[in-house]
């Protein structure tokens, strides 16, 4: 069971991200009904049942993920420490997870019956408060604050405020997006959008203030901010937040323009659903979808933070500004590669699985030729990405260059290159045969990943060349890119050298942010009606190819030592 600790530890971060996301949706949904839907009056009645349905689904998913989170941790403890079930039951994480799970299940069961008849803001808030309190408390109970030696109360309160603000903003956003097409009458839609906009501004102020205060306790200084993994993840979250605020600002402007926009020039209240309008409400929904996606990426980054030691505790092996500058100043890419014979011998599978010290295993496998091999691979991957980005930009900007539409085939080339270079001790370069290479789980996953990249490239090629005409097909590429970017925020590499690991993590985080931005920019472009996207569509069409080019340039400058 000990060797599973590595994989399950990562799984527990994923589950933590899921619990944070679903918790945000549950709390956000309850607050949305209380503060926005109910005050909108009878015209918003069609909205209430949709919102309750959404909250129930989120509550069920939260219960499931909490159960899995508790089960994973318990399985590891029982397998490695030899604890009995009775001994597990008293652990703090078990009590918190079980409390959240039970609260979610009760909410799922009673929301449709008990809450359906509540028409008053105060009564609905009274109904929601116990669930919000239990979920928030459970979340704080499994945050850094509970494990701190000092200032537990202050950091706990700040953590709770921070998470509640995220829930009331990002968590409530899906409910605004499902409300707009369900509402009849422009006045009601305008009221709800304006009210949500005001709520969002308050939430942003609270979460930024609480976040800065938490940084005082968990980061402590500017050098810790850029010199540690925790600190750099805070910067990554902040960068994504800035993107979110830019989108939010656009939506704020759209909401204000609702006051001036006349859809029905006769002045009569329009009884048709506003979904069909190509005016601000449609743009608000599309940009809101991108906000939601980026908000989820921030939640993923937050989950990653929960598993890292606070920067203030890491006094050794911090990166200095000079080291960062030295690593990232531009270099000439490697165009020569060491031969396979020069690489370190492969670590036996048994040893790598059972080792208590992964960094020692990684260090033995990270000598100069290994570094050169990896850097060469990354530089050529960067060239391929540059080609992909340039092709995507040309195809969008100059449609007369029909050959540029074949840019997704670059992913097929990338997959083939990765297959050949990714695991040199295996076929075709190394002594381990093609079929035996699958005995190593990581190699097997790499192979599957390469096949999927190639398939994904072919799929998008079908979309670009018109072979796949479905609108839904066009969403696959941007969503995968955005999710892949968010996944990069969780990715770590053991190299046996803490500073090198930090520098590579910085690269990963930056690549992840660019991929997230690229994915959601392309998503917005595709989601807007063809030919009616206006300035928003034009900006989005420039942003995502530019992000691909930047990713290519970063990979060209990639170094591991």
């Amino acid at each position: 069971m000990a060797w599973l600790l590595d994989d399950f530890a990562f799984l527990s971060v994923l589950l933590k991200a899921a619990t944070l996301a679903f918790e945000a949706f549950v709390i956000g949904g309850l607050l949305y009904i209380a503060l926005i839907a109910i005050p909108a009056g009878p015209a918003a009645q069609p909205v209430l049942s949709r919102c309750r349905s959404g909250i129930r689904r989120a509550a069920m998913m939260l219960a499931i993920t909490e159960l899995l989170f508790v089960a994973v941790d318990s399985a590891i403890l029982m397998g490695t420490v030899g604890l009995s079930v009775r001994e597990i039951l008293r652990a703090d994480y078990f009590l918190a997870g079980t409390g959240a799970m039970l609260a979610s299940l009760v909410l799922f069961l009673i929301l449709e019956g008990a809450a359906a008849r509540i028409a008053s803001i105060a009564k609905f808030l009274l109904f929601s408060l116990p669930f919000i309190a239990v979920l928030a408390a459970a979340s704080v109970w499994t945050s850094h604050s509970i494990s701190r030696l000092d200032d537990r109360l202050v950091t706990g309160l700040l953590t709770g405020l921070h998470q509640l603000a995220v829930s009331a903003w990002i968590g409530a956003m899906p409910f605004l997006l499902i409300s707009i097409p369900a509402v009849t009458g422009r006045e009601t839609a305008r009221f709800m959008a304006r009210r949500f906009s005001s709520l969002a501004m308050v939430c942003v102020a609270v979460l930024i203030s609480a976040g800065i205060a938490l940084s005082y306790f968990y980061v402590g200084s500017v050098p810790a901010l850029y010199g540690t993994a925790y600190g750099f993840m805070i910067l990554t979250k902040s960068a994504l937040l800035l993107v979110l605020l830019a989108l939010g600002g656009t939506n704020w402007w759209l909401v204000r323009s609702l006051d001036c926009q006349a859809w029905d020039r006769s002045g009569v209240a329009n009884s048709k659903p506003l979904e069909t309008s190509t005016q601000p409400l449609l743009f608000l929904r599309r940009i809101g979808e991108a906000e939601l996606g980026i908000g989820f990426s921030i939640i993923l980054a937050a989950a990653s933070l929960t598993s890292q030691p606070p920067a203030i505790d890491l006094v050794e092996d911090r990166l200095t500004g000079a080291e960062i500058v030295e690593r990232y100043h531009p270099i000439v890419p490697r165009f020569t590669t060491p031969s396979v014979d020069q690489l370190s011998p492969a670590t036996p599978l048994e040893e790598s699985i059972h080792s208590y010290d992964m960094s020692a295993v990684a260090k033995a496998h990270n000598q100069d030729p290994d570094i050169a091999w990896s850097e060469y691979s990354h530089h050529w991957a960067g060239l391929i990405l540059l080609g992909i980005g340039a092709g995507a930009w040309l195809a969008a900007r100059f449609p007369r260059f029909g050959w540029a539409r074949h840019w997704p085939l670059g992913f097929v080339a990338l997959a083939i290159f990765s297959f050949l270079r990714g695991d040199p001790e295996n076929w075709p370069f190394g002594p381990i045969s093609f079929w035996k290479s699958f005995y190593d789980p990581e190699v097997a996953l790499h192979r599957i990943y390469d096949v999927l990249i190639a398939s994904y490239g072919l799929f998008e090629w079908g979309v670009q060349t018109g072979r796949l005409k479905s609108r839904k097909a066009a969403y696959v590429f941007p969503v995968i890119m955005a999710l892949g970017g968010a996944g990069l925020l969780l990715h770590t590499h053991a190299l046996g050298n803490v500073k090198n690991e930090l520098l590579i993590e910085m690269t990963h985080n930056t690549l992840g942010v660019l991929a997230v931005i690229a994915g959601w920019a392309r998503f917005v472009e595709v989601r807007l009606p063809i030919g009616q996207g206006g300035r928003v569509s034009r900006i989005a069409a420039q942003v995502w190819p530019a992000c691909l080019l930047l990713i290519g340039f970063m990979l060209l400058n990639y170094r591991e030592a």
Partner: protein
Amino acid sequence: MTLPSRSTLKWRQVSLRAGIASSALFVLVGLLLATQAIGHAILVRSNPKANEVVASGDLKLELEFNARVDAARSTLHLLLPSGETKKLELLPQPSPAILVAKASRLAPGTYSIRWQVLTNDGHITRGEVPFKVK
């Protein structure tokens, strides 16, 4: 305008579903490609220190972390020079962030303390402190 044939429509439908399914698998596989156990309890002080040389006999082992640890659900093992591993009984904690144990009658050789801790917020971290007995 010529409508697509039924076989073409079916091919496109299959392609779309295959694309979505492979995309889901793509994300799942990508997310599984993590390489390192992560946890946020770090060792800030230990007795003995890493790679320290100590005298033979009885030795009090003390490990201090940056966060509160759940001692009832944490372990210390001692890797002996013979390659065997011996589980150590934890003594009462002098502080919420410290684990204490006693190793008796240590003969000369190379040892290693293997620790695994559960912090109060549910994260599990492990590590190793090698030392020598002269």
